[in-house]
């Protein structure tokens, strides 16, 4: 079975085995990367449509009608269509982009190489994991095309709305069933991936690669895998119960006395809060599943281009572990306004504040790494710096929301939208951009265009701040979220101008991403040939050819003698010591 495959040293021949049902972690990593790339553009397209509708709710767009004959009669978007776009935007971005690219994409490609392994511990499981994710994406996209269209309940699928079925609105019928099925498949795929990542990290390190010599990227992937292992298991349970409510007539999440369409429902005994508990027990660790790989990557990139050891390596490791642990005990802070005992709120609030400590340790260590450094401002470095900036901006608003008193006011406003887009959305995306520019030479054997990359960085950086900063202000003023149309509300007044500004910023930022796509695909074909170690970095992937051979190390038996961040070591000729250099 699985473990035999790691002993095979000859690459497979034939297109199917090589590129489609490949067992090679590098091919699977690229497959995940491109799946996420497709998903991110789909998700971004949906968000631009949403922003467009916010500003021009009455606009008649003919191709809206051809895409959604029911959702946009006469080319005017209905509120239901807007909500389904919102739901699918959130779901696709959270699951198929933020969970997929940094962990399953880059992690698959680079975790085995960075610890000196020839492949993951279970190559067959790895392949199954990717194709299950692929199937999950297909099922999710199918929700657009069934009767009633995509679900409306947001990516959190709050009950009772999600448990009611078609009577709750178009999209809550078949579309919602497909949504649950897709998420259940995704849970299975994540479970397979998590087992693989943990077993690989524990078992397949080469001699000398102690845990404390692993690059911080590996630590981040390892802890993220543990979070996936524990979190998605609970989401699966929640999904099973929700599906039972919808198809078997049970009432897990449906309380007595619900009135839908002027009719009292026959259900009783259930609790919508139960869904929130189960969902957020997964949902909060999910936030760290999205951001931890970015943290590991930013640490790595900052150290490489600051030409200094990462400041406080051990503290960074313990901070990752602390964030991973605390991530499991704070889910209640998503539920302050759900009718929770105030004492429980206080407990969750204190734990939430506690996450600020390891997060601040990481931030200060990043700044400490940059302090007095000879910084090389490559595109990868710029995006890593952007990551730190966005992480701080989004993290500070998290401290606001962690206070039950403030959250009561801010929770259903744009403040929350601004907060999680800054930290979980754009910061994680900047981590991916940084990873792309940093690792592209190793993945594809060619360099990306730095000039184009830098233009892309500056425009994107300005763009995302222009989109998401005003949301915080809007939230404080009291602009509610999830509404499809604000034009009819008198209290919105001058705020509509801010929405218009954000819409234009969003369209601008979306268009700028074309630069990235051009850079990516042009460089794949025409970029300058990449040397083995273009960034003069020290970890194992830079000691092998670009792109790496099929079994990564050409059958060589390595031993690791050094830590991952030995830059500017006093008394050495070169300014960096590779991990595989002799002691």
């Amino acid at each position: 079975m699985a473990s035999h495959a790691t002993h095979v040293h000859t690459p497979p021949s034939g297109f199917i085995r090589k590129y489609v049902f490949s067992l090679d972690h590098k091919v699977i990593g690229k497959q995940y990367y491109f799946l996420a790339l497709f998903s991110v553009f789909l998700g971004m397209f949906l968000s631009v449509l949403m922003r467009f509708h916010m500003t021009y709710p009455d606009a008649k767009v003919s191709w809206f009608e051809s895409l959604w004959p029911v959702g946009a009669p006469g080319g005017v978007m209905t509120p239901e269509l807007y909500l389904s776009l919102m739901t699918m935007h959130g779901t696709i971005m959270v699951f198929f982009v933020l969970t997929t690219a940094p962990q399953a994409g880059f992690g698959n490609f680079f975790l085995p190489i960075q610890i000196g392994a020839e492949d993951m511990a279970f190559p067959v499981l790895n392949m199954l994991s990717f194709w299950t994710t692929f199937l999950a994406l297909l099922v999710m996209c199918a929700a657009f095309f069934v009767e009633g269209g995509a679900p409306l309940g947001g990516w959190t699928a709050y009950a009772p709305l999600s448990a009611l079925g078609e009577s709750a609105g178009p999209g809550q019928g078949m579309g919602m069933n497909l949504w649950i099925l897709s998420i259940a498949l995704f849970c299975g795929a994540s479970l397979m991936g998590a087992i693989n990542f943990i077993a690989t990290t524990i078992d397949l390190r080469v001699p000398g690669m102690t845990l404390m010599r692993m690059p911080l990227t590996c630590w981040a992937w390892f802890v993220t895998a543990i979070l996936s292992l524990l979190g998605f298991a609970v989401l699966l349970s929640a999904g099973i119960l929700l599906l039972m409510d919808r198809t078997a007539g049970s009432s897990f999440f449906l309380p007595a006395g619900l009135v839908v369409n002027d009719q009292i429902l026959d259900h009783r005994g259930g609790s919508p809060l139960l869904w929130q508990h189960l969902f957020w027990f997964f949902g909060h660790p999910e936030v760290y599943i999205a951001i931890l790989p970015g943290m590991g990557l930013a640490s790595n990139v900052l150290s490489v281009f600051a030409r200094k050891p990462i400041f406080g390596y051990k503290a960074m490791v313990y901070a990752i572990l602390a964030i991973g642990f605390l991530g499991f005990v704070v889910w209640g802070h998503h539920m302050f306004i759900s009718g929770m005992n105030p004492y429980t709120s206080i407990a969750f609030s204190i734990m939430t504040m506690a996450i600020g400590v390891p997060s601040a340790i990481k931030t200060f260590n990043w700044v400490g790494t940059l302090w007095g450094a000879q910084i090389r401002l490559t595109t990868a470095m710029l995006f890593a710096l952007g990551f730190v900036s966005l992480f701080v901006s989004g993290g500070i608003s998290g401290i606001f929301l962690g206070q039950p008193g403030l959250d009561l006011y801010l929770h259903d406003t744009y403040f929350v939208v601004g907060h999680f887009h800054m930290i979980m959305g754009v910061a994680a995306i900047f981590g991916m951009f940084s990873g792309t520019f940093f690792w592209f030479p190793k993945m594809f054997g060619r360099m990306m265009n730095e000039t184009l990359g830098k233009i892309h960085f500056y425009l994107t950086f300005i763009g995302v701040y222009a989109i998401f900063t005003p949301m915080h202000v809007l939230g404080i003023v009291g602009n509610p979220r999830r509404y499809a149309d604000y034009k009819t509300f008198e209290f919105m007044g001058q705020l509509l101008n801010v929405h218009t500004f954000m819409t234009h910023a969003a369209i601008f930022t979306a268009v700028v991403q074309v630069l990235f796509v051009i850079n990516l695909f042009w460089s794949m074909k025409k970029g300058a040939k990449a040397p083995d170690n273009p960034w003069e970095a020290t970890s194992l992937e830079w000691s092998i050819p670009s792109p790496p051979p099929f079994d990564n190390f050409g059958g060589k038996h390595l031993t690791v003698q050094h830590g991952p961040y030995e830059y500017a070591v006093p008394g050495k000729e070169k300014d960096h010591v590779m991990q595989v250099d002799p002691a």
Partner: protein
Amino acid sequence: MASDAKTATSLWSGGGSPYAIGSKKFGMWLFIVSDMLTFTALLVAYTYLRMSTATWPTPFAFSPSIIFSTVMTLVLLSSSLTMVMAVHSMSHGDRGKTVKWILATMVFGSAFVILHMMEWMHLIRDEKVTPFSNPWGEPLFGATFFGITGLHMTHVTIGVIYLGIIAAGVGRGKFTYEDVEVSGLYWHFVDLVWMFVFPLIYLMSVKM
């Protein structure tokens, strides 16, 4: 893989598995941790709903319900014993005996599923229990019962198929001791889950 642990200074410094077990066995342990949480979530949901319902029914009579489910429990426990014997035989390299013990385990496992189905049929046909209604009031009684025992039964069924694959492989000289042991881990885990389901779902529902 890289098995030359000569340069390794400690179990954790690379070049081998620090737990001194194969990756497959480690992987199964990780799966068990994850699956344990899936069941825990269901049992917590059951507890949460039961605690918040003042009139939760306790309809199971000692005879026949509890006697029947005790027999099911004994059948499943016996299957764990035969699984231990299978792993034991495999550790001596006796493939013939291993296959026989695995087949015995599969017989007990299938018997459990059949008994369980009989119980379900009885509840659905004679007692009119469904996920959405039952004669004793609280509709969630049936929903939690079928949801939790259903997921467990799915695990047992998958386990029987899994053991079938292992038995066939062992018979043809294909699988190693580790493969049998790993399948045993899964089987014992499924058995252990029942040891939580039985008291929480059955014994706590005895008619007072």
